[in-house]
Protein backbone atom coordinates (compact mmCIF):
# COMPACT_ATOMS: atom_id res chain seq x y z
CA UNK A 1 0.00 0.00 0.00
CA UNK A 2 1.32 3.43 -0.79
CA UNK A 3 1.57 6.17 1.79
CA UNK A 4 -1.43 8.13 0.54
CA UNK A 5 -3.81 5.14 0.83
CA UNK A 6 -2.62 4.54 4.37
CA UNK A 7 -2.94 8.21 5.25
CA UNK A 8 -6.48 8.26 3.82
CA UNK A 9 -7.47 5.31 5.98
CA UNK A 10 -5.94 7.02 9.01
CA UNK A 11 -7.65 10.36 8.47
CA UNK A 12 -11.04 8.79 7.81
CA UNK A 13 -10.65 6.53 10.85
CA UNK A 14 -9.95 9.63 12.98
CA UNK A 15 -13.27 11.08 11.85
CA UNK A 16 -15.07 7.81 12.52
CA UNK A 17 -13.46 7.74 15.97
CA UNK A 18 -14.53 11.31 16.65
CA UNK A 19 -18.20 10.66 15.93
CA UNK A 20 -18.34 7.22 17.52
CA UNK A 21 -16.71 8.36 20.74
CA UNK A 22 -18.98 11.39 21.13
CA UNK A 23 -21.92 8.99 21.02
CA UNK A 24 -20.57 7.03 24.00
CA UNK A 25 -22.65 7.71 27.11
CA UNK A 26 -20.63 9.37 29.91
CA UNK A 27 -21.67 6.60 32.30
CA UNK A 28 -19.56 4.20 30.22
CA UNK A 29 -16.41 6.30 30.01
CA UNK A 30 -14.44 3.95 32.24
CA UNK A 31 -15.32 0.84 30.17
CA UNK A 32 -14.51 2.97 27.09
CA UNK A 33 -11.00 3.48 28.41
CA UNK A 34 -10.50 -0.16 29.27
CA UNK A 35 -11.80 -1.39 25.91
CA UNK A 36 -9.72 1.13 23.94
CA UNK A 37 -6.83 -0.15 25.99
CA UNK A 38 -7.55 -3.69 24.92
CA UNK A 39 -7.94 -2.87 21.24
CA UNK A 40 -4.87 -0.65 21.06
CA UNK A 41 -2.99 -3.83 21.92
CA UNK A 42 -3.59 -4.82 18.30
CA UNK A 43 0.03 -3.69 18.23
CA UNK A 44 0.57 -7.38 19.05
CA UNK A 45 0.40 -7.92 15.28
CA UNK A 46 3.77 -6.19 14.95
CA UNK A 47 5.08 -8.10 17.93
CA UNK A 48 4.03 -11.43 16.38
CA UNK A 49 5.70 -10.59 13.10
CA UNK A 50 9.04 -9.94 14.74
CA UNK A 51 8.69 -12.87 17.12
CA UNK A 52 7.91 -15.20 14.23
CA UNK A 53 10.73 -14.07 11.96
CA UNK A 54 13.85 -16.16 11.84
CA UNK A 55 17.33 -14.74 11.58
CA UNK A 56 17.65 -12.07 14.23
CA UNK A 57 17.57 -13.44 17.80
CA UNK A 58 17.46 -10.04 19.55
CA UNK A 59 14.53 -8.88 17.45
CA UNK A 60 12.80 -12.18 18.12
CA UNK A 61 13.12 -11.84 21.89
CA UNK A 62 11.98 -8.22 21.81
CA UNK A 63 9.02 -9.40 19.79
CA UNK A 64 8.22 -12.19 22.25
CA UNK A 65 8.40 -9.77 25.17
CA UNK A 66 6.04 -7.43 23.31
CA UNK A 67 3.70 -10.36 22.60
CA UNK A 68 3.54 -11.14 26.31
CA UNK A 69 2.93 -7.49 27.30
CA UNK A 70 0.26 -6.98 24.67
CA UNK A 71 -1.42 -10.25 25.72
CA UNK A 72 -1.72 -9.00 29.30
CA UNK A 73 -3.55 -6.02 27.89
CA UNK A 74 -5.74 -7.90 25.46
CA UNK A 75 -6.97 -10.53 27.89
CA UNK A 76 -6.98 -8.21 30.88
CA UNK A 77 -8.60 -5.34 29.01
CA UNK A 78 -11.44 -7.31 27.47
CA UNK A 79 -12.04 -9.32 30.66
CA UNK A 80 -12.21 -6.29 32.93
CA UNK A 81 -14.46 -4.47 30.46
CA UNK A 82 -16.77 -7.46 30.36
CA UNK A 83 -16.79 -7.56 34.14
CA UNK A 84 -17.67 -3.88 34.39
CA UNK A 85 -20.34 -3.96 31.70
CA UNK A 86 -22.02 -6.89 33.42
CA UNK A 87 -22.59 -4.64 36.42
CA UNK A 88 -24.59 -1.99 34.60
CA UNK A 89 -28.21 -2.90 35.20
CA UNK A 90 -31.52 -1.24 34.67
CA UNK A 91 -34.08 -0.78 37.41
CA UNK A 92 -34.96 -4.45 37.80
CA UNK A 93 -34.97 -5.41 41.43
CA UNK A 94 -35.32 -8.86 42.98
CA UNK A 95 -38.90 -9.65 43.99
CA UNK A 96 -39.19 -8.25 47.56
CA UNK A 97 -37.64 -4.92 46.68
CA UNK A 98 -39.64 -4.68 43.46
CA UNK A 99 -42.85 -4.95 45.45
CA UNK A 100 -41.65 -2.21 47.77
CA UNK A 101 -41.24 0.00 44.75
CA UNK A 102 -44.65 -1.01 43.53
CA UNK A 103 -46.17 0.19 46.83
CA UNK A 104 -44.52 3.51 46.40
CA UNK A 105 -45.89 3.99 42.91
Amino acid at each position, binding site marked *: *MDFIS*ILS*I*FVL*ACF*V*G*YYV*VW*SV*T*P*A*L*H*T*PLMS*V*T*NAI*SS*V*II*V*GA*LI*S*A*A*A*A*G*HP*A*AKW*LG*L*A*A*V*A*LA*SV*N*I*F*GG*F*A*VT*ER*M*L*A*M*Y*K*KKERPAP*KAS*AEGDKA
Partner: protein
Amino acid sequence: MSVPAETGIYIPPAAMPPAEVTHAVSPWVALAYLVAGVCFILALRGLSSPASSRRGNRFGMVGMTIALVTTLVTHQLASLPEILVAIAIGGGIGFIIARRILMTAMPQLVAAFHSLVGLAAVLVGSAAYLNPGAFGIADAMGHVLTESRVEMGLGVAIGAITFSGSVIAFLKLNGNMSGAPITLPMRHAINFLILAVILGLIAYFTAASDAPAIFATVTALSFLIGFLLIIPIGGADMPVVISMLNSYSGWAAAAMGFTLHNTAMIITGALVGSSGAILSYIMCKAMNRGFISVIAGGFGADSSGGAAAAKADRPWKRGSAEDAAFLLKEANQVIIIPGYGMAVAQAQHVLREMGDLLKEAGVTVKYAIHPVAGRMPGHMNVLLAEANVPYDEVFELEDINNEFAQTDVAFVIGANDVVNPAAKDDPGSPIYGMPVFDVGKAKTIFFIKRTMGGVGYAGVDNDVFYMDQTMMLLGDAKKMVEEINKAL
Protein backbone atom coordinates in the same frame (compact mmCIF):
# COMPACT_ATOMS: atom_id res chain seq x y z
CA MET B 1 -6.93 -9.86 -8.31
CA SER B 2 -8.35 -12.90 -6.62
CA VAL B 3 -11.37 -10.89 -5.55
CA PRO B 4 -14.10 -10.86 -8.22
CA ALA B 5 -14.77 -7.40 -9.56
CA GLU B 6 -18.49 -7.51 -8.80
CA THR B 7 -17.92 -7.60 -5.02
CA GLY B 8 -17.01 -3.97 -5.37
CA ILE B 9 -14.05 -4.29 -3.01
CA TYR B 10 -11.35 -1.90 -4.01
CA ILE B 11 -7.84 -3.16 -3.69
CA PRO B 12 -5.15 -0.53 -3.99
CA PRO B 13 -2.79 -1.41 -6.85
CA ALA B 14 0.21 -1.40 -4.53
CA ALA B 15 -1.27 -4.33 -2.60
CA MET B 16 -1.20 -6.57 -5.67
CA PRO B 17 1.31 -9.40 -5.55
CA PRO B 18 3.65 -8.34 -8.36
CA ALA B 19 4.79 -5.23 -6.49
CA GLU B 20 8.43 -4.68 -5.64
CA VAL B 21 7.82 -4.57 -1.88
CA THR B 22 9.57 -7.43 -0.11
CA HIS B 23 6.50 -8.68 1.70
CA ALA B 24 3.57 -7.93 -0.58
CA VAL B 25 0.31 -8.10 1.32
CA SER B 26 -2.28 -10.37 -0.24
CA PRO B 27 -5.67 -8.73 -0.74
CA TRP B 28 -7.30 -11.32 1.51
CA VAL B 29 -4.97 -10.50 4.36
CA ALA B 30 -5.56 -6.78 3.92
CA LEU B 31 -9.28 -7.52 3.91
CA ALA B 32 -9.04 -9.51 7.14
CA TYR B 33 -7.25 -6.64 8.88
CA LEU B 34 -9.89 -4.26 7.57
CA VAL B 35 -12.63 -6.47 9.03
CA ALA B 36 -10.78 -6.46 12.36
CA GLY B 37 -10.67 -2.65 12.21
CA VAL B 38 -14.42 -2.49 11.53
CA CYS B 39 -15.05 -4.80 14.51
CA PHE B 40 -13.16 -2.35 16.71
CA ILE B 41 -15.30 0.52 15.45
CA LEU B 42 -18.41 -1.51 16.34
CA ALA B 43 -16.92 -2.24 19.76
CA LEU B 44 -16.82 1.47 20.57
CA ARG B 45 -20.17 2.06 18.93
CA GLY B 46 -21.74 -0.48 21.29
CA LEU B 47 -20.82 1.70 24.25
CA SER B 48 -23.42 4.29 23.28
CA SER B 49 -25.78 2.59 25.74
CA PRO B 50 -25.33 0.07 28.54
CA ALA B 51 -27.79 -2.25 26.78
CA SER B 52 -25.65 -2.69 23.67
CA SER B 53 -22.30 -2.40 25.41
CA ARG B 54 -21.61 -6.08 26.01
CA ARG B 55 -22.27 -6.92 22.39
CA GLY B 56 -19.79 -4.18 21.54
CA ASN B 57 -17.15 -5.75 23.74
CA ARG B 58 -17.69 -9.09 21.97
CA PHE B 59 -17.11 -7.36 18.64
CA GLY B 60 -13.82 -6.13 20.05
CA MET B 61 -12.82 -9.68 20.96
CA VAL B 62 -13.80 -10.97 17.53
CA GLY B 63 -11.77 -8.24 15.86
CA MET B 64 -8.73 -9.05 17.97
CA THR B 65 -9.05 -12.75 17.21
CA ILE B 66 -9.24 -12.04 13.48
CA ALA B 67 -6.14 -9.85 13.64
CA LEU B 68 -4.20 -12.43 15.67
CA VAL B 69 -5.14 -15.45 13.58
CA THR B 70 -4.51 -13.62 10.31
CA THR B 71 -1.04 -12.64 11.43
CA LEU B 72 -0.16 -16.12 12.65
CA VAL B 73 -1.48 -17.84 9.54
CA THR B 74 0.20 -15.57 7.01
CA HIS B 75 3.74 -15.47 8.36
CA GLN B 76 6.39 -18.14 8.34
CA LEU B 77 6.50 -19.10 11.97
CA ALA B 78 10.01 -19.84 13.11
CA SER B 79 8.94 -20.05 16.73
CA LEU B 80 5.29 -20.92 17.23
CA PRO B 81 5.76 -22.65 20.62
CA GLU B 82 7.54 -19.64 22.11
CA ILE B 83 4.83 -17.33 20.79
CA LEU B 84 2.07 -19.45 22.28
CA VAL B 85 3.89 -19.54 25.61
CA ALA B 86 4.27 -15.74 25.55
CA ILE B 87 0.56 -15.31 24.81
CA ALA B 88 -0.36 -17.81 27.53
CA ILE B 89 1.82 -16.12 30.16
CA GLY B 90 0.68 -12.61 29.30
CA GLY B 91 -2.93 -13.61 28.81
CA GLY B 92 -3.01 -15.57 32.07
CA ILE B 93 -1.59 -12.65 34.04
CA GLY B 94 -4.00 -10.23 32.40
CA PHE B 95 -6.99 -12.45 32.99
CA ILE B 96 -6.19 -13.01 36.68
CA ILE B 97 -5.65 -9.29 37.26
CA ALA B 98 -8.91 -8.48 35.50
CA ARG B 99 -10.83 -10.93 37.67
CA ARG B 100 -9.32 -9.86 40.98
CA ILE B 101 -8.97 -6.10 40.67
CA LEU B 102 -11.13 -3.98 42.96
CA MET B 103 -13.39 -1.60 41.08
CA THR B 104 -12.06 1.28 43.16
CA ALA B 105 -8.61 0.48 41.72
CA MET B 106 -9.71 0.83 38.09
CA PRO B 107 -7.81 4.10 37.50
CA GLN B 108 -4.51 2.46 38.53
CA LEU B 109 -5.27 -0.59 36.43
CA VAL B 110 -6.00 1.46 33.33
CA ALA B 111 -2.80 3.46 33.87
CA ALA B 112 -0.84 0.21 34.19
CA PHE B 113 -2.42 -1.17 31.02
CA HIS B 114 -1.52 2.02 29.16
CA SER B 115 2.08 1.63 30.21
CA LEU B 116 2.11 -1.88 28.73
CA VAL B 117 0.82 -0.65 25.36
CA GLY B 118 3.53 2.01 25.39
CA LEU B 119 6.27 -0.45 26.24
CA ALA B 120 5.04 -2.94 23.65
CA ALA B 121 5.19 -0.17 21.03
CA VAL B 122 8.79 0.58 22.01
CA LEU B 123 9.71 -3.10 21.80
CA VAL B 124 8.02 -3.58 18.43
CA GLY B 125 9.68 -0.45 17.10
CA SER B 126 13.07 -1.67 18.32
CA ALA B 127 12.51 -5.11 16.83
CA ALA B 128 11.56 -3.52 13.51
CA TYR B 129 14.68 -1.40 13.69
CA LEU B 130 16.90 -4.42 14.31
CA ASN B 131 15.26 -6.69 11.76
CA PRO B 132 13.51 -4.51 9.16
CA GLY B 133 13.49 -7.36 6.65
CA ALA B 134 10.88 -9.23 8.67
CA PHE B 135 8.49 -6.29 8.31
CA GLY B 136 9.19 -5.68 4.62
CA ILE B 137 10.66 -2.26 5.32
CA ALA B 138 14.31 -2.94 4.51
CA ASP B 139 16.11 -1.46 1.53
CA ALA B 140 18.59 -3.37 -0.60
CA MET B 141 21.34 -2.78 1.96
CA GLY B 142 19.27 -4.19 4.82
CA HIS B 143 18.73 -0.74 6.36
CA VAL B 144 15.32 0.62 7.33
CA LEU B 145 13.61 2.39 4.44
CA THR B 146 13.83 6.16 4.77
CA GLU B 147 10.07 6.70 4.69
CA SER B 148 9.57 4.14 7.44
CA ARG B 149 12.12 5.77 9.72
CA VAL B 150 10.05 8.81 10.58
CA GLU B 151 7.04 6.67 11.50
CA MET B 152 9.25 4.31 13.46
CA GLY B 153 10.93 7.17 15.32
CA LEU B 154 7.61 8.81 16.17
CA GLY B 155 6.04 5.49 17.18
CA VAL B 156 8.88 4.61 19.51
CA ALA B 157 8.96 8.13 20.99
CA ILE B 158 5.20 8.21 21.65
CA GLY B 159 5.32 4.67 23.02
CA ALA B 160 8.13 5.56 25.41
CA ILE B 161 6.33 8.70 26.61
CA THR B 162 3.17 6.64 27.13
CA PHE B 163 5.12 4.09 29.12
CA SER B 164 6.98 6.32 31.56
CA GLY B 165 4.07 8.77 31.89
CA SER B 166 1.69 5.92 32.69
CA VAL B 167 4.07 4.45 35.23
CA ILE B 168 4.11 7.78 37.09
CA ALA B 169 0.33 8.07 36.80
CA PHE B 170 0.03 4.52 38.17
CA LEU B 171 2.32 5.26 41.12
CA LYS B 172 0.38 8.42 41.96
CA LEU B 173 -3.01 6.76 41.68
CA ASN B 174 -1.90 3.68 43.60
CA GLY B 175 -0.51 5.81 46.42
CA ASN B 176 3.08 4.61 45.98
CA MET B 177 3.95 8.18 45.22
CA SER B 178 2.44 11.36 46.63
CA GLY B 179 -0.43 12.72 44.56
CA ALA B 180 0.86 16.23 45.18
CA PRO B 181 2.42 17.97 42.21
CA ILE B 182 6.21 17.83 42.14
CA THR B 183 7.42 21.00 40.47
CA LEU B 184 10.98 21.35 39.35
CA PRO B 185 12.45 24.77 38.67
CA MET B 186 12.58 25.72 34.98
CA ARG B 187 10.54 22.64 34.12
CA HIS B 188 8.80 24.22 31.13
CA ALA B 189 12.10 25.24 29.56
CA ILE B 190 13.63 21.82 30.24
CA ASN B 191 10.62 19.99 28.81
CA PHE B 192 10.54 22.11 25.67
CA LEU B 193 14.24 21.61 25.16
CA ILE B 194 13.98 17.82 25.48
CA LEU B 195 10.97 17.67 23.12
CA ALA B 196 12.83 19.78 20.58
CA VAL B 197 15.87 17.52 20.80
CA ILE B 198 13.69 14.41 20.32
CA LEU B 199 12.04 15.87 17.22
CA GLY B 200 15.40 17.05 15.87
CA LEU B 201 16.93 13.62 16.36
CA ILE B 202 13.98 11.92 14.65
CA ALA B 203 14.45 14.25 11.69
CA TYR B 204 18.16 13.47 11.63
CA PHE B 205 17.42 9.75 11.99
CA THR B 206 15.10 9.97 8.98
CA ALA B 207 17.19 12.13 6.74
CA ALA B 208 20.79 11.35 7.49
CA SER B 209 21.68 8.41 9.67
CA ASP B 210 20.05 5.33 11.12
CA ALA B 211 22.85 4.78 13.61
CA PRO B 212 21.81 2.77 16.70
CA ALA B 213 23.04 5.55 19.00
CA ILE B 214 20.46 7.98 17.61
CA PHE B 215 17.64 5.47 17.86
CA ALA B 216 18.64 4.70 21.46
CA THR B 217 18.91 8.39 22.38
CA VAL B 218 15.44 9.13 21.00
CA THR B 219 14.06 6.25 23.05
CA ALA B 220 15.86 7.24 26.25
CA LEU B 221 14.91 10.92 25.99
CA SER B 222 11.29 9.94 25.35
CA PHE B 223 11.22 7.84 28.51
CA LEU B 224 12.64 10.83 30.38
CA ILE B 225 10.16 13.36 29.00
CA GLY B 226 7.20 11.11 29.81
CA PHE B 227 8.37 11.03 33.40
CA LEU B 228 8.99 14.79 33.57
CA LEU B 229 5.63 15.63 31.97
CA ILE B 230 3.55 13.75 34.53
CA ILE B 231 5.30 14.39 37.88
CA PRO B 232 4.10 18.02 38.18
CA ILE B 233 0.45 17.06 37.68
CA GLY B 234 -1.60 16.61 40.83
CA GLY B 235 -3.86 13.72 41.82
CA ALA B 236 -7.25 15.18 40.92
CA ASP B 237 -6.04 16.16 37.45
CA MET B 238 -5.48 12.47 36.80
CA PRO B 239 -8.72 12.10 34.79
CA VAL B 240 -7.15 14.34 32.17
CA VAL B 241 -3.77 12.61 32.40
CA ILE B 242 -5.24 9.14 32.02
CA SER B 243 -7.32 10.24 29.04
CA MET B 244 -4.29 11.87 27.48
CA LEU B 245 -2.15 8.77 27.94
CA ASN B 246 -5.01 6.73 26.50
CA SER B 247 -4.82 8.97 23.46
CA TYR B 248 -1.02 8.60 23.24
CA SER B 249 -1.22 4.82 23.35
CA GLY B 250 -3.54 5.07 20.34
CA TRP B 251 -1.21 7.35 18.40
CA ALA B 252 1.68 4.99 19.16
CA ALA B 253 -0.30 2.08 17.73
CA ALA B 254 -1.22 4.17 14.67
CA ALA B 255 2.41 5.12 14.07
CA MET B 256 3.36 1.44 14.22
CA GLY B 257 0.52 0.75 11.81
CA PHE B 258 2.06 3.23 9.37
CA THR B 259 5.43 1.53 9.71
CA LEU B 260 3.97 -1.93 9.14
CA HIS B 261 1.33 -0.85 6.60
CA ASN B 262 -1.32 -2.54 8.70
CA THR B 263 -4.91 -1.27 8.41
CA ALA B 264 -6.12 -2.84 11.64
CA MET B 265 -3.45 -1.01 13.60
CA ILE B 266 -4.08 2.28 11.81
CA ILE B 267 -7.84 2.20 12.29
CA THR B 268 -7.50 1.16 15.92
CA GLY B 269 -4.82 3.74 16.62
CA ALA B 270 -6.98 6.49 15.14
CA LEU B 271 -10.02 5.34 17.16
CA VAL B 272 -8.15 5.12 20.43
CA GLY B 273 -6.26 8.34 19.76
CA SER B 274 -9.44 10.31 19.14
CA SER B 275 -11.21 8.60 22.03
CA GLY B 276 -8.55 9.70 24.50
CA ALA B 277 -8.42 13.18 23.01
CA ILE B 278 -12.19 13.63 23.34
CA LEU B 279 -12.18 12.37 26.93
CA SER B 280 -9.36 14.80 27.79
CA TYR B 281 -11.42 17.59 26.25
CA ILE B 282 -14.55 16.63 28.23
CA MET B 283 -12.56 16.49 31.47
CA CYS B 284 -10.90 19.86 30.89
CA LYS B 285 -14.22 21.45 30.04
CA ALA B 286 -15.75 20.03 33.22
CA MET B 287 -13.01 21.77 35.21
CA ASN B 288 -13.14 24.92 33.07
CA ARG B 289 -9.42 24.68 32.54
CA GLY B 290 -7.37 24.70 29.39
CA PHE B 291 -5.71 21.46 28.36
CA ILE B 292 -2.34 23.22 28.32
CA SER B 293 -2.81 24.49 31.87
CA VAL B 294 -3.63 20.99 33.13
CA ILE B 295 -0.68 19.47 31.31
CA ALA B 296 1.63 22.23 32.54
CA GLY B 297 0.78 20.99 36.03
CA GLY B 298 1.43 22.48 39.44
CA PHE B 299 -2.28 23.08 40.12
CA GLY B 300 -3.24 23.30 43.80
CA ALA B 301 0.38 23.33 44.93
CA ASP B 302 0.53 26.93 46.07
CA SER B 303 -2.93 28.22 47.00
CA SER B 304 -3.84 26.36 50.20
CA GLY B 305 -2.33 28.63 52.87
CA GLY B 306 -4.74 31.55 52.73
CA ALA B 307 -7.86 29.44 52.56
CA ALA B 308 -6.88 27.35 55.56
CA ALA B 309 -6.32 30.46 57.66
CA ALA B 310 -9.55 32.13 56.64
CA LYS B 311 -11.89 29.35 57.59
CA ALA B 312 -11.03 28.75 61.22
CA ASP B 313 -13.33 31.43 62.59
CA ARG B 314 -16.54 30.74 60.67
CA PRO B 315 -19.39 28.94 62.39
CA TRP B 316 -20.57 25.58 61.13
CA LYS B 317 -22.97 22.92 62.38
CA ARG B 318 -22.12 19.36 63.14
CA GLY B 319 -24.80 16.76 62.57
CA SER B 320 -25.09 13.18 63.80
CA ALA B 321 -26.04 10.03 61.92
CA GLU B 322 -29.42 10.05 63.73
CA ASP B 323 -30.17 13.62 62.59
CA ALA B 324 -29.29 12.65 59.06
CA ALA B 325 -31.42 9.50 59.15
CA PHE B 326 -34.41 11.43 60.46
CA LEU B 327 -34.26 14.17 57.84
CA LEU B 328 -33.50 11.75 55.01
CA LYS B 329 -36.55 9.65 55.85
CA GLU B 330 -38.78 12.71 55.95
CA ALA B 331 -37.60 13.91 52.54
CA ASN B 332 -39.47 13.58 49.25
CA GLN B 333 -36.36 13.68 47.13
CA VAL B 334 -32.74 13.05 48.01
CA ILE B 335 -29.86 13.67 45.62
CA ILE B 336 -26.62 11.90 46.45
CA ILE B 337 -23.38 13.44 45.16
CA PRO B 338 -20.50 10.98 45.38
CA GLY B 339 -16.86 11.94 44.93
CA TYR B 340 -13.42 10.44 45.20
CA GLY B 341 -13.79 10.17 49.00
CA MET B 342 -16.52 7.57 48.48
CA ALA B 343 -14.12 5.46 46.43
CA VAL B 344 -11.36 5.79 49.03
CA ALA B 345 -13.72 4.72 51.82
CA GLN B 346 -15.24 1.93 49.66
CA ALA B 347 -18.61 3.33 50.70
CA GLN B 348 -20.54 2.56 47.50
CA HIS B 349 -22.22 -0.61 48.83
CA VAL B 350 -23.46 0.89 52.09
CA LEU B 351 -24.54 3.94 50.14
CA ARG B 352 -26.71 1.77 47.89
CA GLU B 353 -28.17 0.11 51.00
CA MET B 354 -29.03 3.56 52.28
CA GLY B 355 -30.68 4.35 48.96
CA ASP B 356 -32.72 1.12 49.17
CA LEU B 357 -33.85 1.87 52.73
CA LEU B 358 -34.91 5.35 51.71
CA LYS B 359 -36.77 4.06 48.67
CA GLU B 360 -38.64 1.63 50.88
CA ALA B 361 -39.63 4.65 52.98
CA GLY B 362 -41.05 6.27 49.85
CA VAL B 363 -38.22 8.70 49.17
CA THR B 364 -37.10 9.39 45.61
CA VAL B 365 -33.34 8.81 45.46
CA LYS B 366 -31.16 10.09 42.65
CA TYR B 367 -27.42 10.07 42.16
CA ALA B 368 -25.67 13.06 40.61
CA ILE B 369 -22.26 12.60 39.04
CA HIS B 370 -19.87 15.33 38.04
CA PRO B 371 -17.75 14.53 34.97
CA VAL B 372 -14.50 14.89 36.94
CA ALA B 373 -15.65 13.12 40.11
CA GLY B 374 -13.13 10.45 41.00
CA ARG B 375 -9.83 9.78 39.33
CA MET B 376 -10.88 8.79 35.83
CA PRO B 377 -13.77 9.47 33.46
CA GLY B 378 -16.83 7.50 34.56
CA HIS B 379 -15.15 6.29 37.77
CA MET B 380 -18.20 6.97 39.99
CA ASN B 381 -20.59 5.35 37.50
CA VAL B 382 -18.63 2.10 37.64
CA LEU B 383 -18.56 2.08 41.43
CA LEU B 384 -22.31 2.69 41.66
CA ALA B 385 -22.91 0.02 39.04
CA GLU B 386 -20.76 -2.35 41.09
CA ALA B 387 -22.96 -1.62 44.11
CA ASN B 388 -26.02 -2.52 42.00
CA VAL B 389 -27.36 1.00 41.65
CA PRO B 390 -29.48 0.90 38.48
CA TYR B 391 -28.00 3.18 35.86
CA ASP B 392 -31.29 4.98 35.27
CA GLU B 393 -31.08 6.45 38.79
CA VAL B 394 -27.71 8.01 38.00
CA PHE B 395 -27.67 11.43 36.35
CA GLU B 396 -25.13 13.70 34.73
CA LEU B 397 -24.49 17.23 35.94
CA GLU B 398 -26.53 19.09 33.33
CA ASP B 399 -29.48 16.69 33.56
CA ILE B 400 -30.03 17.08 37.30
CA ASN B 401 -28.67 20.48 38.26
CA ASN B 402 -32.01 22.31 38.02
CA GLU B 403 -33.65 19.78 40.38
CA PHE B 404 -31.89 20.93 43.54
CA ALA B 405 -34.50 23.63 44.15
CA GLN B 406 -37.15 20.89 44.49
CA THR B 407 -34.87 18.66 46.52
CA ASP B 408 -35.13 18.23 50.29
CA VAL B 409 -31.74 16.75 50.95
CA ALA B 410 -28.48 17.01 49.04
CA PHE B 411 -26.17 14.30 50.35
CA VAL B 412 -22.53 15.02 49.55
CA ILE B 413 -20.24 12.07 50.16
CA GLY B 414 -16.55 12.42 49.47
CA ALA B 415 -16.95 15.27 46.99
CA ASN B 416 -15.92 18.86 47.60
CA ASP B 417 -14.83 21.11 44.75
CA VAL B 418 -17.72 19.97 42.53
CA VAL B 419 -20.25 21.56 44.92
CA ASN B 420 -18.24 24.70 45.72
CA PRO B 421 -20.24 27.85 44.93
CA ALA B 422 -16.98 29.80 44.61
CA ALA B 423 -16.84 28.39 41.10
CA LYS B 424 -19.87 30.59 40.35
CA ASP B 425 -19.41 33.62 42.62
CA ASP B 426 -15.73 34.25 43.17
CA PRO B 427 -13.77 35.30 40.09
CA GLY B 428 -10.57 35.10 42.14
CA SER B 429 -11.04 31.42 42.96
CA PRO B 430 -8.82 28.91 41.17
CA ILE B 431 -11.91 26.90 40.29
CA TYR B 432 -13.92 29.91 39.02
CA GLY B 433 -15.99 29.00 35.98
CA MET B 434 -16.04 25.27 36.65
CA PRO B 435 -19.59 23.91 36.35
CA VAL B 436 -20.74 22.82 39.84
CA PHE B 437 -23.82 21.34 41.49
CA ASP B 438 -26.19 23.99 42.96
CA VAL B 439 -26.49 22.15 46.28
CA GLY B 440 -27.17 25.48 48.01
CA LYS B 441 -30.69 25.42 46.56
CA ALA B 442 -31.59 22.23 48.39
CA LYS B 443 -33.46 22.57 51.70
CA THR B 444 -30.89 20.61 53.68
CA ILE B 445 -27.33 19.62 52.87
CA PHE B 446 -25.46 16.76 54.51
CA PHE B 447 -21.75 16.86 53.91
CA ILE B 448 -19.74 13.79 54.81
CA LYS B 449 -16.12 14.68 55.36
CA ARG B 450 -13.37 13.19 57.44
CA THR B 451 -12.36 16.40 59.25
CA MET B 452 -13.02 20.10 58.92
CA GLY B 453 -9.30 20.61 58.39
CA GLY B 454 -8.88 19.31 54.88
CA VAL B 455 -9.79 21.29 51.82
CA GLY B 456 -10.57 19.94 48.37
CA TYR B 457 -8.01 19.34 45.70
CA ALA B 458 -8.14 22.94 44.52
CA GLY B 459 -7.07 24.00 48.02
CA VAL B 460 -9.96 26.44 48.41
CA ASP B 461 -12.43 26.74 51.23
CA ASN B 462 -16.02 25.76 50.51
CA ASP B 463 -18.86 28.11 51.50
CA VAL B 464 -21.25 25.16 51.57
CA PHE B 465 -19.73 24.10 54.92
CA TYR B 466 -21.02 27.27 56.57
CA MET B 467 -24.48 27.55 55.02
CA ASP B 468 -27.47 27.63 57.39
CA GLN B 469 -28.96 24.46 55.97
CA THR B 470 -25.69 22.49 56.00
CA MET B 471 -24.88 19.82 58.55
CA MET B 472 -21.38 18.42 58.53
CA LEU B 473 -21.15 14.69 59.18
CA LEU B 474 -17.55 14.25 60.22
CA GLY B 475 -16.07 10.80 60.02
CA ASP B 476 -15.17 7.97 57.68
CA ALA B 477 -17.69 7.91 54.84
CA LYS B 478 -18.41 4.21 55.10
CA LYS B 479 -18.85 4.17 58.90
CA MET B 480 -21.03 7.27 58.77
CA VAL B 481 -23.36 5.77 56.17
CA GLU B 482 -23.48 2.50 58.14
CA GLU B 483 -24.60 4.43 61.21
CA ILE B 484 -27.23 6.24 59.17
CA ASN B 485 -28.47 2.89 57.89
CA LYS B 486 -28.74 1.60 61.44
CA ALA B 487 -30.78 4.63 62.42
CA LEU B 488 -33.10 4.36 59.43
